[in-house]
Structures are given as structure tokens and as C-alpha cells.
């Protein structure tokens, strides 16, 4: 798992400046901030707005439109479980219930110990190996309850 750094405006400014000249720079900038800090701190909004000559409202609007961007730090590990039809046909609903019970949280929540954040996703493109789960950006197919438990155990021991 990537080691995340805490928010600092100087680094954010540098990440923004590197990309400000790209055509349609806003999404690449928000991705860069999230990749670096694990989330997009609301304090970044005025910095991005200034660099791109946009209003804060415009930047906030984009930040909140897309499911990917989050405004608070996630847990150390991010679990994204597919809820779309192909995975449903292979028992994704049961898997989702198991995961929620195992982690003790619902979607868009983080465990109290800060270890796991759970997100839903609609299709990871692994529909021929359903059900699918993405753990810290890595795709896993043919996941059942036992395999999921094994994966999260490995994610903690492999740190």
C-alpha cells in the first residue's frame, strides 16, 4: 500500500503548476492531488481555482460530480467491490453483505481503526471472472467470502 503524506499547500501548488498548462487540466490535477495525498483536501480548491482562472464553485462542482474524488482521507486500504450485473449474476450481493459484515462498515465508510475504506463500483471489466473486487488498485477476480478474508489478511501482513 502506498504511504500517504499529510496535506501541505506547497506540494499541492507544485502538483497543480506542473499540470496547469494541459488542455482540460482540472481532472488531471485532481487525480494528481488524490494520488499524492489520498484525497483532495478542500484547502486545495482555491489553489486550483486560482491556477486555472476558475471560480471556487466551478472547482468544487467538478470535485463533487465524480464518484472517484474524496474530500477526506481514506483508510490505509481501499476496498472497491463491484455491484454491477455480471457480478450480481455470480453472487455479488452475498459478497457485499459478507464484506460489510466482515469490516463492520457500509459503503463510503472507513473502519474506526482507519484500516479499511469500503466503496462500491459499477464494473471493473472483470466480468468473465466475476465477482470482482479491487483492493488498493489491484484487481481480484472469482472472489468469494473466503478469498476476500484471505486478501484483507494479506493486505495487512504485506505492509
Amino acid at each position: 500500500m502506498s504511504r500517504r503524506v499529510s496535506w501541505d499547500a506547497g506540494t499541492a501548488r507544485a502538483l497543480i503548476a506542473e499540470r496547469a498548462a494541459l488542455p482540460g487540466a482540472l481532472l488531471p490535477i485532481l487525480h494528481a492531488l488524490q494520488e499524492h495525498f489520498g484525497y483532495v483536501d478542500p484547502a486545495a480548491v482555491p489553489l486550483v481555482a486560482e491556477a486555472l482562472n476558475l471560480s471556487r464553485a466551478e472547482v468544487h462542482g467538478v470535485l463533487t460530480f465524480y464518484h472517484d474524488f474524496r474530500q477526506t482521507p481514506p483508510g490505509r486500504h481501499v476496498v472497491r467491490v463491484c455491484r454491477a450485473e455480471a457480478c450480481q449474476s455470480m453472487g455479488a450481493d452475498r459478497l457485499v453483505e459478507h464484506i460489510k459484515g466482515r469490516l463492520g462498515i457500509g459503503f463510503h465508510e472507513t473502519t474506526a481503526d482507519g484500516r479499511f475504506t469500503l466503496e462500491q463500483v459499477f464494473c471493473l471489466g472483470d466480468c468473465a471472472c466475476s465477482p470482482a473486487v479491487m483492493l488498493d488498485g489491484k484487481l481480484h477476480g472469482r472472489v468469494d467470502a473466503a478469498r476476500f478474508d484471505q486478501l484483507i489478511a494479506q493486505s495487512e501482513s504485506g505492509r
Partner: protein
Amino acid sequence: MTVRVFVPRDAAALSVGAHAVAEAVRAAAEARGADIELVRNGSRGLFWLEPLLEVETQAGRIAFGPVRAEDVDLLFDAGFRPITDHPLCLGLTEDIPYLKRQERLTFARCGITDPLSLADYRAHGGYRGLARALTMPGEAIVEEVVQSGLRGRGGAGFPTGIKWKTVLGASADQKYIVCNADEGDSGTYADRMLMEGDPFVLIEGMTIAGLAVGATEGYVYIRSEYPHAFRQMTRAVDIARAAGYLGASVHGSGKAFDLHLRLGAGAYICGEETSLLESLEGKRGIIRYKPPLPAHKGLFGKPTVINNVISLATVPIILDRGGAFYRDFGMGRSRGTLPIQLAGNVKHAGLIEKAFGLTLRELIYNYGGGTATGRPLRAVQVGGPLGAYFPDSLLDLPLDYEAFAAQKGMVGHGGVVVFDDTVDLARQARFAMEFCAIESCGKCTPCRIGSTRGVEVIDRIIAGTNRAANLLLLDDLCTTMLDGSLCALGGLTPLPVQSAVKHFPEDFDRPAPRVAAE
């Protein structure tokens, strides 16, 4: 002698352990002191056999699968020759019936070549289409694509050549080629496979499109759920640029074309072309009114060709072999081949590229081998989350744009998801509305509000409240969404809902689930 061994680096193959298999191959070779070349190819698309390991022999490539890391050591003899009587041995890859019966044009190289080797790409017919296009005026390239009968593989099925002709005819200081790689439909993965398994074919197709219409820049918008495909495309674009296939003078022709890659951010609506353009411009992915068409006013207000990955990746073979060659495959007005993605509850899920006209039944039983669970098949959803649910009685429908439209369904991007008899179509209809509510961009009322009302109405039907009246209301709501929505999300969500009600009425008439005592 060097032995060539192939273990895919396709995301789906990796998701079931291909990386560990590749490591085991290296270790086994080292232990035997064998000289091997380990190629990380794309997937052949036989996903129930992944991780699929292949070994090159004089007779051809021998396949093993599905291979676990712990199996690897037993697949090779002391000289690192494949042990063909091992239970996991599948014989010659090309002779596997699933593969042998296909007509692979767009996916001709996927799984065969090293995806990042330009030499391999050229040795297998790559860049021949571009070479020919470079000798032709733009009008002739467009005409070749028109003649091929190619229709947009993203879902709408609009003739690709006609789109190009409009952009060619528009005058502007700058034009763009945009590739829609926001493959959000559940049950589809052809774009992902191709970007990971044969990225140069997409780059070549976009370059030809640029030459055809006079565009010097292209963008590929890849969904963020495909980080692996994004990395692979990034590498491939760098390699193509370094070799002079992209840049100020494409292959020394003096004509410019370059590519940029952009990552989506988890919004299904960005697969809609105008919403995608907004997103590329750095805005909320809110759809645009049409007209103006993107062909007149697209990316940054300039004339833009926007096509799906498969459409663009099919252009090189059309230019190489000619429009007539491609047109000779298929049926009716659906010309050429369709890469079908068989998914969900099916024994042999995978990619099947065939000429249009194959029936769902042939597909699911002759290729798919029936359900994975072994239970009776009950429903098939074709064309992603906005596609209709079909019962067994409609499985003789041929895969053809018009035949599906006549049954109030759509071929879409070619995804086929199979469900066994444990599926509850009332729940699936509810999910279709829920998905629309989550993914609606919010611009038009029928989609934004209608989808939420749809969930509520279906909840009342499931709960047994005033069923007849609520079913009527649901039908009315679907009609409003169908006729009143601005784009396909709100406009097609009624397809899965109404097909579920029509073909599986018993699921909407079950005894209400018992509510826990208060």
C-alpha cells in the same frame, strides 16, 4: 535454444493469479538452467482458462490452463519442453474449438503478440493500414470506411464513415479525434482487453482517422476503473512516439498526429459522447444538447470525431484489406464482426469475435457451455445496464442491430450477461432504476427524478402495495423517461425495466416479503 513462454498480463488474467504464474515460470526455468523468453501477452479471451500459459513449439503454441503457480513446475520436462499429457494441457491453442470457430479481425493479434513490441506488431500485419492510408487523400480513406459498413461499436451503431465525412467536410483551424474508452457497461471488457493486449492497433486506427479528416491531435479518455489499461496505453503511446509513428511527421510522411491520454473519474455518464467531451475539457460530465453535433462543435468547440475503442481499432484492418473485405462479413445492415463479451453466470465466459448473425442460444450453449452454476438459465441481459433482459424463448434472436431493436432490446457494446434461475427480475428492474439514479448527470428531469421515483414505485410493487396501479404507474414513468430524457441513460433505463416486467411478470407478482414484526 530459447524457449518462448507466454503468460498474459491482461488485467483479468492478473486478477486470477497470472503474475504468480509468470514468477513460477521464471523460477522453474532458472532451476533447470533453461534459456527462456517470457512474453507477457494480452489475453486470448478464454477467461475460464486463465491464467493460460502457452509454450511455443515447432508444431505451434501449446496451451495449459487454468494454471496455478504451484502447477508450473510439472508442466515442463528437464529440457523445458511442455509435457503434453499433463491434465492441464489443452493442446495447440489455435485448435481450441472456442477460438478456432471465431472470426477474429479486430482482435487478430490480441493474445498472440507482445503488446508493447512494435516489431511484433508489424510482423503480424500492424501498420499496413496506415501505410496505405498515407498514400490516399482524406476523402478516399473516409470512403473506404463508409464502404466497409462499419457502425459505431460503442452501442449506438451509427455508421462510422458518415461521422467522419461530416468532420472532413467541416472547416476549422483545429480538429480532434477522441476515443471513447469509458467502457462502463457491466458485462463488457473488449476495450480493456484490446488496450492491454494490442494497444498499437488503437493508436494506428486513431492516426488513420486523423489523416482522414485532417485532425492533428487525438485524445483517449480511459475510465479510472481501468488503471492497468491506462498504464499500458501510456507505455504504448511513448513507444509509438519514439519510433516516429506519432508526432510532427507520422512515419516520415510530413503529416502530424499526436495522442494524449486522459483518465476518467468514476462517472458512467461520461461514456455518453457529449458528457465525455465536457469531462475532457475539465468540467462536470453533464451532457450537452444536440445539435450542434460533436462533428461540428466537439472538443473545445472544434469539429471532432468521437468513436469507441473497437470502432477505431477496426479501421486498420479495413484500410489494409479494403472496405469490401470487411463488409463481406455479417448480415443485413450489420456488417463485419462483433466482439461479443460473454460474461456473468456462464461456464465458459470470454471474448467471441464473430460475424453478426450468431444467435444468443448458439453463443450461450455452443460457446458458453451453459450456466456456471449448472442451474437452468433464466434471463440474459444484452447490451449493458441499459439493455433488455431476455427470457429463454427469445434466445434464437440473431445478434444484429435491427433484430434486437425489433424486440425492444439493443446489441450495445456486445456484452452478454447470463443469469440462472435464482435471479429475481423485480430486483434487477429496481437495480436498473437505482443505477440510473446514482449515475444520472442531473441535467434533465425525467432521468434525474424519474429514476428515483422508479426505485420507489418498484419497491411498492415488490412490497405488494397496490400492485396493479403501481405497475401502470411504472409503465407511465418509463414512457416519460424514454420520450423525455436528453440522452441514452434516462432514455434507455426503461429497456431493462420494461423487458423484465414483460417477459418475467411472475417476479412482479410474488407474495410480498414478510416484514419483521415491529
